Every structure is written in structure tokens, then in C-alpha cells.
């Protein structure tokens, strides 16, 4: 535990403070013709605008020899509250991706959409066109509340409609008020009027660190509600949404070799009505604004604020801010993965959940997601929903369109879910190499190969239909939520991972470090041995992770 009083605030805090409400020198950086990059300080500020500077790490050395700077490009993340977008927005995003990025839309684990490989000279046009599509990228990254997630599909359409609307309301309420976004990207110059700007919720330095909110609609915990800074768990009675259980202090990120950093599950602290959810969110954000650690970015998430001061203090602090929660209502979760294929909701509308490997909307030899989804978007009377597992739901399909859409799905090979084993369909990986600056090992590019190994193992042990949750990240920051997986691989060095086991349990149990710094061969050996043990000794219907705990292979830990 650090003592914030004696330590200076981080450099990022200084950058935010002097950024004049997130302007920084972005306009000058964009105008600098001599580099494809933006000024170092602006790379912090740009995140608040939904823009990450990246470079191709694989060509760095080569380009230095070529007397060229690194191959800079930008990732732009469009904010899609609750993951819902219209067919028109989908088409616009695909066209923008084709015109200004590497051509692929990428669906994220926070139900947002990313463009990759946008060059500096195209940034402003891209941002304007995203805005024209009635979407924005503001606060999609940075030390603010980010895209608010929501379980994208529920049998009870009314519950989903209401929950997703609250998600959008919370998102809207927590959007920064600065006009910097408008000025820099849309107007291209300072807006008229010079009344001092005010951030009523965030203040001039925003939050100490990123902040994540998601709403889960049981029995699905696809949003991994316990991995959020603030989670809302929908409570349903007699077919109506009556409110939310409130969970606080979840978070995945940690650093190798720094025990003061750790993943943490959120604690359920009570229940609120739907209408109170916005006020609860504002109060939680403000507590984090006021008490979060601004002296150490590795210790700045809400989870540390809560652990440093105690959960009781936190609940009291909420009370001091006028937020009084009722007792939480028991709810049950059944799964974190998506329910692939066709389903019908209470409105009589149809939904087709498609498997999108790696969240990448591409055309390749197996599937023509790009072309197929465009064709569907052109006729669809419903909407698209991005799932927290990086998949896509064609939603609210009327009976009259069902057949035609089924035909388009088949014609373009969008029914990958039919052939993929559960272990493949449910696996997640972060982007990692070559573009992520934090990556220590491969993740997304390696996932298909590793899943292949796991499939072989499962087949050998007669477990092909086993629902084993595999997640890989290139570093310990946890973007693909590896600490909740049955089998988590966390990158340590090229080709080397820490093997994490024993998570699962619908996102309510963290896994544990089992072995460190393993090669693929060692990982496969370990799993082979454990699976043999599992097959020989499991109880009927017992999940793999539960077995590892019961058999004492992992030490049992209390639910956080």
C-alpha cells in the first residue's frame, strides 16, 4: 500500500492538468508534417479521444536502417454503448474502415468497435465520418469512464431494452463535458465563446486511471461483471427489471513481479433501483476521482482504493454522498460465453449470434464476414449487437426476414459457430503483437494455434465437448480478462507464458498462477497430465476448474 500524501503525482497527472481539458498540443501534433506520430504528451491525451498511437514493432529495426521513423499508425475506438448499433452505422463503419484503416473492423471485449492502422493524416477525416455516422470515440479510452457494456441478449426483450437504455444513460452522463473533442476533430478550430470550461463530474485531471462499467443480465455473465470497476447486475421480477445489484472494485490488471498489483473480483455491496443507477455511477466515479491514487498508475484503479481503505469505508463514503443501497438480491449466473446460433425473444423477434474469430470482421477462405455482414446490414430491419466475447448478434430480426438472413449467413459462411468446438468459440485473446506497445508475447495471432493444441488434448482425453474457457493475453494487464479463465496464458516473453488455472465458475472465481514462464510444449505437457488426472478422478458433471480446487491441485481460495 502506498502513501499518496508523500509521493508526487504521476507525469500523466501533470499532462492532464496542463492539457486545458484534454486539448494538449493535439492540433499542433496533427499539423506537424515531418512525422506520422504525435507529440509524446499528446499520446496520453489522445486516448481520451479514443485514439491510441501504435507502431509496427516488427519493422522498427528495419525502418531505423532505412532512416525512416517507426511505422506509426493509430487505433481508433468507437464507443458503442451496450454494444448496439444500427445497420446504417455498421455500414458506415465498414466503409470508413475500408477507406482509412487497414480495412478491418475489430469488435472488442468491451463491445466497442476498433479501426486499426489509421495514419495521422487521415485521423481527422476518420473522426468526422464516425461522427457523421452518429457515433463517437470520445472517452473510449483514457482515464475516464469507458464504453458502458451490457449483456447484449436476453430472453426477456423488455428487460434487455431497459437495461441497455440505462447503460446508454450512464454512458452519456459520464461523458466528459470539454469541447476539446469537438474543436480538434470536428470543427478543426477553437469554438466561439470563451466561458471557462467545467467538468462537473471529473474535474480538470479526470480520473487517476481508466474506469469500467458494465451491466449483466443474468443468467448471462458475458460482460464479466466482477471484472468491472463498477458492475450492475440486473434483477428481474415478474418479467420486469426492478433494479440492479451493485458490484464495485473489480479489475484485471497486474504487473509481473509486483505483488502489490493483482486482479480482483468486484464486491457486491447492495441493490439500487434502475433510476438510481446513474446517481450511483456518478458517486462511485467521484469517490474514485477524490480518493484514487494519483501517484502510481499501477495502483490507481478503484480496486486498490477500496482495498487500501476497506469496503466499509467505501459504502460509508457512498452514504456521505447521498447514495444508500438496499440489500443485494440473490441472483444466479449460468455462463459467460455467448449463446451461438438462433434464438427468439419475448417480442417474437429473432437473433442470430455469430462467431467472429478474434473479433475480426474480415473476408478469408473460411468466412466472408465483411461482405456478408454488409449484405445483411443493407436489408436488416433490426440492429447489430456486439458481444463482450467479441462476437456479433444480428438482432431483432422479424419473422419475414429470418429466412433471407439465414440464407445470407449460409451463403457467406457466417455460421462458423456450427463447426467450431466450444473451446474455440469461447476463447479470447487480446491484440498484443505487433501493434500493442505493452505486449511481451503473442496473443491474438497465437490463439488459433494454441486452441488447436488444446483441441487435440481434449480429443485425446474424450473431452471434445468440454466447455473449457481459454484466454490469452500478451502481458499481465488483462485486456482479455485472462484471470477469469479456466486456462489463462499471460505473456511473459516471446513464446513464454504464465499458466493460470482454476477460474471459470461464470466469472465469479479468479484463477491462480500454476506455473511460470512456460513454453508451449511445457504448457501442453502440464495440461495433458492434469486432464488425464481430471478424466480419471472427476465427479459426474464436475467442471475442470472445480476439480482442480477439490483435488487440492490448486489451493482453495475464498470468493473475493
Amino acid at each position, binding site marked *: 500500500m502506498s502513501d499518496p500524501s508523500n509521493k508526487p503525482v504521476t507525469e500523466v497527472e501533470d499532462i492532464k492538468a496542463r492539457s486545458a481539458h484534454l486539448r494538449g498540443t493535439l492540433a499542433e501534433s496533427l499539423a506537424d508534417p515531418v512525422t506520422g506520430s504525435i507529440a509524446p504528451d499528446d499520446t496520453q491525451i489522445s486516448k481520451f479521444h479514443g485514439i491510441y498511437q501504435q507502431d509496427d514493432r516488427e519493422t522498427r529495426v528495419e525502418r531505423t536502417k532505412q532512416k525512416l521513423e517507426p*511505422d506509426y499508425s493509430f487505433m481508433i475506438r468507437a464507443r458503442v454503448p451496450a454494444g448496439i448499433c444500427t445497420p446504417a452505422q455498421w455500414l458506415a463503419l465498414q466503409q470508413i474502415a475500408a477507406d482509412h484503416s487497414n480495412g478491418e473492423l475489430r469488435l472488442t471485449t468491451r463491445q466497442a468497435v476498433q479501426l486499426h492502422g489509421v495514419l495521422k493524416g487521415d485521423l481527422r477525416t476518420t473522426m468526422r465520418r464516425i461522427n457523421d455516422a452518429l457515433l463517437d470515440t470520445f472517452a473510449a479510452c483514457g482515464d475516464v469512464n469507458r464504453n458502458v457494456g451490457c449483456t447484449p441478449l436476453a430472453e426477456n426483450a423488455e428487460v434487455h431494452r431497459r437495461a441497455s437504455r440505462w447503460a446508454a444513460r450512464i454512458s452519456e452522463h459520464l461523458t466528459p463535458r470539454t469541447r476539446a473533442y469537438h474543436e480538434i476533430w470536428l470543427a478543426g478550430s477553437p469554438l466561439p465563446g470563451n466561458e471557462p470550461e467545467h467538468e462537473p463530474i471529473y474535474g480538470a485531471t479526470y480520473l487517476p486511471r481508466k474506469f469500467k462499467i458494465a451491466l449483466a443480465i443474468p443468467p448471462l455473465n458475458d460482460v464479466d461483471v466482477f471484472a468491472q470497476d463498477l458492475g450492475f447486475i440486473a434483477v428481474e421480477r415478474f418479467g420486469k427489471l426492478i433494479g440492479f445489484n451493485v458490484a464495485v472494485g473489480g479489475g484485471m490488471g497486474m504487473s509481473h513481479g509486483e505483488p502489490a498489483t493483482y486482479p480482483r473480483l468486484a464486491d457486491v455491496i447492495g441493490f439500487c433501483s434502475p433510476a438510481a443507477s446513474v446517481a450511483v455511477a456518478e458517486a462511485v466515479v467521484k469517490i474514485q476521482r477524490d480518493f484514487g491514487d494519483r501517484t502510481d498508475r499501477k495502483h490507481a484503479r478503484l480496486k486498490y482504493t477500496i482495498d487500501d481503505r476497506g469496503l466499509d469505508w467505501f459504502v460509508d463514503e457512498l452514504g456521505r454522498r447521498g447514495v444508500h443501497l438496499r440489500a443485494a438480491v440473490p441472483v444466479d449466473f449460468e455462463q459467460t460465453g455467448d449463446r451461438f446460433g438462433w434464438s427468439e425473444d419475448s417480442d417474437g423477434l429473432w437473433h442470430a449470434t455469430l462467431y467472429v474469430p478474434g473479433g475480426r470482421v474480415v473476408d478469408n477462405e473460411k468466412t466472408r464476414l465483411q461482405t456478408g455482414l454488409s449484405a445483411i446490414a443493407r436489408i436488416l430491419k433490426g440492429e447489430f449487437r456486439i458481444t463482450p466475447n467479441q462476437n456479433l448478434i444480428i438482432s431483432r430480426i422479424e419473422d419475414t426476414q429470418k429466412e433471407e438472413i439465414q440464407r445470407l449467413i449460409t451463403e457467406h459462411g457466417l455460421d462458423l459457430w456450427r463447426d467450431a468446438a466450444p473451446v474455440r468459440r469461447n476463447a479470447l485473446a487480446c491484440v498484443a503483437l505487433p501493434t500493442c506497445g505493452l505486449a511481451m508475447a503473442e496473443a491474438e495471432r497465437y490463439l488459433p494455434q494454441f486452441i488447436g493444441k488444446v483441441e487435440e488434448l481434449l480429443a485425446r482425453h474424450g473431452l471434445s465437448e468440454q466447455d473449457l474457457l481459454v484466454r490469452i493475453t500478451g502481458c499481465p494487464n488483462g485486456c482479455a480478462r485472462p484471470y477469469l479463465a479456466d486456462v489463462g496464458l499471460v505473456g511473459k516473453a516471446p513464446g513464454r507464458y504464465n499458466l493460470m488455472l482454476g477460474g471459470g465458475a461464470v466469472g465469479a472465481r479468479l484463477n491462480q498462477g500454476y506455473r511460470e514462464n512456460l513454453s508451449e510444449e511445457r504448457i501442453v505437457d502440464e495440461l495433458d497430465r492434469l486432464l488425464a488426472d481430471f478424466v480419471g478422478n472427476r465427479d459426474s458433471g464436475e467442471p475442470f476448474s472445480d476439480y482442480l480446487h477439490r483435488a487440492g491441485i490448486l489451493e482453495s481460495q475464498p470468493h473475493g
Partner: protein
Amino acid sequence: MPLGKLESGVSAARPNINPVIQQDALADLDSAVADFERDQLLWASGYLAGLAVARATSPAQRPVAPAEAPAPASSTEPAAPWTVLYATETGNSRFVAQELAEAMSAAGQTAKLVDARDYRPATLKQERQLLLVVATHGLGDPPEGTEAFFEYLLGSRAPRLPQLSFAVLALGDSSYEDFCEAGRQVDARLAELGAVRLLPRVECDLDFESDADAWTKRVVEQARARDGVHIAPVHTLRAAPTAPSYSRRHPFQAELLTNQKLTGRGSSKDVRHVELSLEDSGLSYQPGDSLGVVANNPAPLVEQFLEYLGESPSADVSIGQEALTLGEALRSRLELTNATRSFVQAHARNSASADLAALADDPRALAKYLKSNQIIDILRQYPAALSAQQLVASLSKLTPRLYSIASSLDANPDEAHLTVAVVSYTRDGYAHFGAASNFLAAGPSTVPVYVEPNDHFRLPQDSAAPIIMVGPGTGIAPFRAFVEQRRHQAAVGKSWLFFGDRTRRNDFLYQLEWQRYLKEGALTRLDVAFSRDQAEKVYVQHRLRERGAQVYAWLMDGAHVYVCGDAEHMAGDVHQALLDIVAEHSGRSADHAVSLLSDLKTQGRYQRDVY
């Protein structure tokens, strides 16, 4: 005057000088120099002339014949001096003019070598014998920097010149419509002004060397014919002992130190940074100079020729008197890429093609055709069953390629750097190659080079003077040398570079260096135009115009302007942009802009190296 002056085949290297030297002494002299190379002979002739001057009894400023020798009975005064005037762009005309001056001197003539850029047109009236070697540049224009001379000569102020005898050798490139236009104009105008033409004008194509040699020989013969044999002291001798011993004819084998691609993976171009070692060569250069590269032809291209002939590389052929293998001839002796009119004519005969013969006689159509067809294309389009010797005979000598040097010798002792665009494309299903660029890109262990000076592309004498450099594409090369030089000198003068190419991401040549120089202050400003980074094409001239006010302010502040790169479009567009900028920001007329730029040229403050 007796002396075999009209005998054919008189060798310039062994002039008959019976009147002043005994037969025995001549034999001694002959044997003493029997093993001398041509350069050594030339040097020796200068050396002997020097001895003659030293022994002169008269202290008169004007050198006279050796004292021991009686003045030639039939000649009462020294023959009239010759002026060899050249107008050069790439150095070829200067090369020919130098050889001519040397040959004239060796033949006992007084010959003064002058660059048209340094020539005061008013002295034309005093000239008696003028030999002109005139290159044509771009679209029928005179070479950069010689505009003043041409304007005077072709304009109404030019005096009558009845006293003058002259001959013109015109150099050009038959892939341009107005082939040898500048030389033609000079030739016609001098005659119009009443001067006497000693020889009909000769026009040379890219393969100028054999035509130029023949013309030189005839000029020397003419000179002898005019005043008989006359021992005149050598006035100008370029092959002086202090001159570098490596030249176009005797290139230095420079070790290739670096061959680094500069363009990124996504580029549509392949541009190389080439570093060569000049160690122990004695070669030196200044920023602005060019390096001549005497390249071998790319192996795949040689292969295509062999395939065409159906011959083995070991087949015997001859070039002139020299016997060699076909492979060797194609690899290192013959021009295989740039076609000329003479090749088209030869191949028209070889292929018995009336079409091709007609094409050779239509300059306009020929220029257009040669722009987009290499020799191999012509061979394929007009197939002929050629013997190896027939083909060899139709080809001209391999011409060296010039590259603006991209380094400062002070900043990189013993090195010369080049920026080389590798020309390589597929057309009609066949790979096509630029000869020198592919030779360099293939990474030979050594590269035969010589230095081609360019005194008309020089940093200001005053290192505090501001400079504006416009160098898109590989036109960036000399400016890297300029900035390196000024950085090395810690010069205080401001510098402003305009660079352009296709994309910032992959075609920003020397990007990291410019970023560093900007940071350090060695480069004051950098404006870039990347034509393919946005919907509308943007080029350097657009950036100049956008910055017009500052560009004009720099000019008024004494800035020197340099332009390097494409002659066909860029140089003209940039020139027009400068004219418009001056007109707009001076608030004066377009005429004022024209005269201001022309003054800048005269003052050496507006220099171009365009190709």
C-alpha cells in the same frame, strides 16, 4: 607550308614536327615516351611547353616559341587563338570540350576552354575562332545557367560577327522532340550574324562519344589546315599533373560500403542509399558535384539479349579492333537500355523494317517512341535474325550515369553517398531494368566512379546566407550534402528544405536525419508534400505557394534558391510558383518577377540541377 598537313591519318599523338627538331632527337623523344599512356603524353606535352616558357629569353607576358628554335619561316606571328566554349548540363559537353581543348593543344594550337555560364557575351566581338559544344536540356532548352549567353546571342543585341569562324557540336537525346535544339539555334544564329562556318554542325545522341571523337579529329585537322603547323605554347591544359588521375575514361574502383533501401515495405518505389569509399583515390568533391557511375549492365538484362540472339556468352565479337566475348561486350561495354536514333536506324536495316526506318526519320514520333521503349523492346517489336556481331555493331558504347552526390566529404571523409532510385518494372511480360541503378542495387563489391564537378550548384560563399532547397524524390540528394556541409561548418545561415514524394509513411527519404537536423537547428524549416497521402495530389510547388509570403521574405533576405530533380514537370512548376510568389508578394508585375529571377540566376542565387 610543306608538311603533310593534308595527309590523311595524321596522328594527333605523333605530330610531324620536322621543322624544329632533328630526326635523331625526334627518335629519342619517341622512344622516351613510347610506353606513355594518353594522359601521360598530354601531361608531357604540357611539361615540355613549360620548359619552353622557362627558357624563353623574352620576359614578355605572352609565351613565345623556344629561343633555340628560329621562328618558323613561314609564320610571322602566332596563330590566332581558339576559344572552346561549352554549354553543359550533365558534364558531357564539358567532357567533350576538354578533350577538344587538349587535342588542339597537343596539335600545337592555342585553345582556351570556357564555360558558357562564365562567358561574357560581349567578348564575342573579339573572338576569331570559336568552337562550341552545346548541350540541349529538357524540352529543347539551353543548359541551366547558360540562359544569359543564349539570350544575348539569339537576341537583337547580338553584334554582326563577320570576323568569326566557328563550328558547333550539338549534344542531345533523341528521346526528346527538340533534339539538339540549343546547338541548332547557336549554329544557325552565328551564321546569320555573318560568322563563317568551318564545319557543318554535328549532332550527337546519348552515345555521343564516337561522333564527338570524330568531330574533334576533324576540327583539329581544320585548325592545322588553317594555319599550317605551328608550335604554339599550350595555353590551357586540363590534364595537368594536379588533376585527379581518375576520370570518365579511367574510373576509380570504389568499394561499396552500404547499399540500404530507404523506402519502407509499403512503398511502390525502391530507393537506395549507397555509400562508396573513395579511400586512396585522391578523388575529392564538393557539395553539388555529381558522381559518374560506369555501371555494368544488370545480369538479367544481359540474359535477355543472349536469349534474343540465341547465342552463348562465350561467342566471339569485336568492338572496333578489339576482340572479346559477347557476354563481356553486353555486360560491360555496350549500352543496353537507352535507345538512340542511330540504333533505331541500324536496327531498321537489320530487320529490314520500313516502319522503323520511317520512325527514325520522324523526330517527333521517334522521341515519343524512345521515351517508352528500351533497346530490348525495339528488338522484340522488330524481330530480326541477328548475328552476335550484327547486334554488337548496332549498339553504342555504354554511357556512364551521373548521380548527384548526397554527402559532404568534410562530414564523411573518404566517402561519397548516392541516392539511387532503382528502375525496374515489368512491361509486355518482360522485366525491364535501369542499368546503373540495378547494378548498384545488386550490391557489387566495387563501383567504377569518377567525379563530375558542378560549379553551378554550390552553397553560397557566405555561410550566413539563407538557402531554400527544393528537392522532391531523389532530388533530395545534393541537399543532404548541403545540410551536412553546413552542419559540419556550424554555419549560421538559415536553411529551408522542400521535399516531396508519394507517401510520408514509406517514401520520406532520410526522414530520421531531417528530424534530427530540425531538432538540432542544422535545418531551419522543412515542408513536405506527399502526393498520395490525400485525395488531391500535392507537390512541392503547392507547398512553396502556401508559404509564398515567407519564401519571398527569405529571398529579400538574400536567400539562395536551389532546385534539384525532375526536369520535365517539377522544375517548370517550381519556376512558375516562384514567379507567381515574387509577383504576388512584391506587389509588382509579372515582368518584375521574371527579371528578378533572371537576376538571381545571373548572381548565382537561383541554381538548378534538374534531369
